């Protein structure tokens, strides 16, 4: 992307790991990437065979996405039931007896320091089931820092690894290769947090974009795996509000993530992934669920605020799904065919797809009920869409933004996010030198930063997707101060780990913050 020659005023030599990436003769080839994936598959399969776990706990969003990519792979898929896989993020939402007395395999694709696994081990320890006889930690690739921190000499768990003691350049290279594998497999959105609906496109992408833009803004970009991605951003207007009665009291739906991602899966097939993440009150407030929602989400959302956040998010995502489908049906239904997720008893025929993978993040979710609810949403959207087909909105033509521009803007946004996270952490260190926790930014804070860069919200929303898919930005659920002065559980964002933070820090030192900061 950078034109040569580099002027003489740019002092210094390119960093070694980038030399290897830029020099085609030394760059890891597609074959090398394939070998890595094969190693990953072999490693996980061997751990399953040798350890014979009852349950696999997958660490972090990227770990769950990798497991999903391996399980759903066209080539030599990994065989493992979704019901026996659980995200580390969902551990607090399962009953103790789901974990107690089980042989557990904790899978972490990449371990930097090992500290991030502490909550998982603490949870298991609290149940009295942390021992090397019952719990194994399987790490595919570990940074040299994790050995220094004693991750491989633990007396609490059995430990297995494929690569360990990796120096920073090797660690970063492996990480990039794994991310590329994910991007080729369908991006980080392969994770297990979001429902999806599939669309077969009979027209062109520009037609699809036109339909998606009926009542929303849309940005098109190519992911690292050369897949077409469309970010559909819904503004905080009257047409895109959630019915508050269905959700817990004190929920905030202004200034939240409220969008759809449309990700190319095959030449003419796309996944529609609705995402809506209201922030929820920390108090034990009333949530008068109707019987159907209660059955859909199960009991996890009652006791655990974290599970409640994701439960609310799942229900809330049904609305952007309805909006996007409505806009599609209102445009030209001949342009596409929607295929809905199937119930588990319909999967025998081999065709179609299910949402079983959501069990990883939502252990008490009634998958078949969800399939029914989605079918109803589709039905309502069809009906609403057909009624609105005659309404034409006067929208300006779509102005494409080049991928180069988007990626540069994404880097700029990442820089300022990283700067604010750093400043806040440095402030904490002033008063508490032992502070370890780096708070991420909530979406309103990121939007405010993006707007200082003169980006509009739809553009910023697409930049989020690029950064998340590239593994540059990581999402969390944390306590966050909302604009109304109330602290709630909210989606937060920060650079993905110290490796990325450090890279961004160096970039800022060498090239400065974007104008206006």
């Amino acid at each position, binding site marked *: *992307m*950078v*034109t040569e020659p*580099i*002027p003489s*005023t*740019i*002092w*210094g*030599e*390119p*960093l*070694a790991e*980038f030399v290897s*990436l*830029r020099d085609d003769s030394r*760059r890891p080839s597609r074959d090398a990437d394939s070998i890595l994936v094969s190693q990953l598959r072999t490693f996980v399969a061997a751990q399953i065979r040798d350890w014979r776990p009852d349950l696999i706990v997958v660490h972090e969003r990227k770990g769950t996405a990798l497991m999903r990519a391996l399980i759903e792979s066209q080539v030599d898929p990994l065989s493992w039931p979704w019901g026996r896989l659980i995200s580390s993020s969902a551990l607090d939402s399962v009953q103790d007896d789901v974990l107690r007395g089980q042989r557990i395999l904790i899978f972490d694709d990449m371990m930097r320091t090992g500290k991030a696994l502490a909550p998982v081990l603490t949870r298991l320890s609290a149940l009295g089931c942390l021992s090397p006889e019952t719990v194994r930690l399987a790490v595919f690739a570990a940074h040299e820092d994790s050995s220094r921190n004693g991750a491989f000499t633990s007396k609490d768990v059995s430990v297995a690894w494929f690569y360990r003691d990796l120096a920073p350049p090797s660690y970063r290279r492996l990480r*990039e290769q794994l*991310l*590329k594998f994910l*991007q080729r497999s369908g991006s980080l959105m392969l994770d297990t947090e979001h429902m999806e609906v599939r669309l077969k496109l009979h027209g062109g992408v520009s037609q699809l974009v036109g339909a998606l833009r009926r009542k929303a803004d849309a940005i098109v970009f*190519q992911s*690292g*795996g*050369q897949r077409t991605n469309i970010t559909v951003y819904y503004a905080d207007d009257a047409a895109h509000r959630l019915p508050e009665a269905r959700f817990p009291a004190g929920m905030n739906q202004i200034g939240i993530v409220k969008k759809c991602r449309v990700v190319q899966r095959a030449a003419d097939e796309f996944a529609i992934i609705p995402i809506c993440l209201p922030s929820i009150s920390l108090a034990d407030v009333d949530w008068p669920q109707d019987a159907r929602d209660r059955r859909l989400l199960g009991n996890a959302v009652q006791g655990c605020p974290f599970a409640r956040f994701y439960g609310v998010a799942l229900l809330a995502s049904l609305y952007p799904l309805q909006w996007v489908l409505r806009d599609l049906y209102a445009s030209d239904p001949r342009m596409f065919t929607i295929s809905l997720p199937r119930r588990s008893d319909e999967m025998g025929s081999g065709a179609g797809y299910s949402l079983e993978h959501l069990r990883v993040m939502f252990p008490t979710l009634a998958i078949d009920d969800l399939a029914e609810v989605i079918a109803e949403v589709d039905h309502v959207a069809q009906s609403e869409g057909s009624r609105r087909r005659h309404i034409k909105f006067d929208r300006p033509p779509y102005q494409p933004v*080049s*991928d*180069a*521009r988007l*990626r*540069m803007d994404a*880097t700029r946004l990442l820089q300022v996010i990283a700067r604010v996270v*750093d*400043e806040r*952490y*440095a*402030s904490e*260190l*002033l*008063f508490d*030198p032992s502070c370890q926790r780096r708070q991420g930014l909530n979406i309103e804070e990121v939007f405010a930063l993006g707007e200082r860069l003169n980006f509009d919200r739809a553009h910023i929303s697409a930049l989020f997707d690029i950064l998340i898919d*590239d*593994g*540059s930005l990581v999402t969390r659920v944390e306590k966050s101060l909302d604009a109304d002065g109330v602290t709630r559980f909210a989606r937060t964002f920060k650079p993905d780990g*110290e490796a990325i*933070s*450090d*890279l961004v*820090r*160096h*970039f*800022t*030192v*060498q*090239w*400065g*913050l974007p*104008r206006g900061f």
Partner: protein
Amino acid sequence: MGSEDSSVDLFHLLRSGREGLQFERMFRALSFLVERWYAYRGDRSPDLGNGGTSQLRSIQFDKLVMLVARLWDALYARKEMLQFGPLGDQVTLNTGADAVTFPCPLQEMPGKHGPGRAVYDGQTPPRFIVSVLYQLQQEDLLHYFTITPPVEVAETGQRRTALPNHPDTVVGPPVQFGSKKQFVDRFLPREVEVISELELAIRRLNPSEIRALGTHENCPKTIASIKWEFHALGRRLGVLQRLRQSLVEGRPFPAEAQEWIEYAEEAWSKASGNRGAYAAGRDRIVAELSDPEVLSVFQDVQAPAQEIWEDPRVVRLWTVAGRSLGLARYSLTVSAALGGGKKTSGPLHEASAYCAEVGIPGLPDSADNLISADGKLLPNARDLIIEWVDRILKEMLSC
């Protein structure tokens, strides 16, 4: 470059060794400016509050770095270093001899009383510039400055060299200084012009003016900086909560009162006290600068004093800061009285009168109205003081 690698495209621009050169050149530029400041024999405005006009102490030096780095970065940002090629699908580096080609590598990070320029690794607290330079000096690596911390007496009675960030640390010029030409030899022509302009602009400033210009740049940042003092005192350090508890228990609290005064004085200075020095320093720099670009950047970056201090939000914060400072001083005299201090009535009377002036009326103005025969606070006085402490704390935290 194929788009498969585009996830890290801009990071390809990272250069090993670049940061070392950036630091060396920025330190060199700062060293030149400090040397010229010390060498200047012309007039400066009298400066009674900062140890006279002939020395830069650590805080003033820190603020000088803030000012220079702010201008340097603004000049650097004038020219987009990363630009799109004509087809919009390539990023090119736009560098040349007619611009500032590197940003200040020291990052603006939060310090005890607001931001300063520092080195930050993301793991440990930021290392601010005076500490960094002192370490380089101690390790015999860099002598672009002469940093002399004061000698202080430890609690054990031993004399020892204070930490370099001590407010009385003096930052002086390098021991040896060659010719200007030799010193700025490695800069590009435009960078030399900028450094020369900064030399002319800064050398006539007195330390208070440097401090004020480094501390303030515009209204929003001044507001944030005043609030920082309020919140640091109230929420983070819990000084007022500890002080309140001492009042309830009738114990002296000199350390808490002193800390409150320190933060309150800082807040008050930022909300009002620095205005005169800022305005004078800004006028002086505007008069000295002749390079149109540097002048324009300076005027953009350093807002006129009235834009900062006549903003109603700043005026409101000034009111709160004044009340906080008044009550802080009053509480110190109360603490002295609780500790059995002699002759507390005079200071109490003065502090009480000052409080009344800033809107805190009715505080006891003599020891007889404050302390009982057994040396405790009289209940009415105690309750009144606590009520005001609570009110002021609430006021500060609600800002």
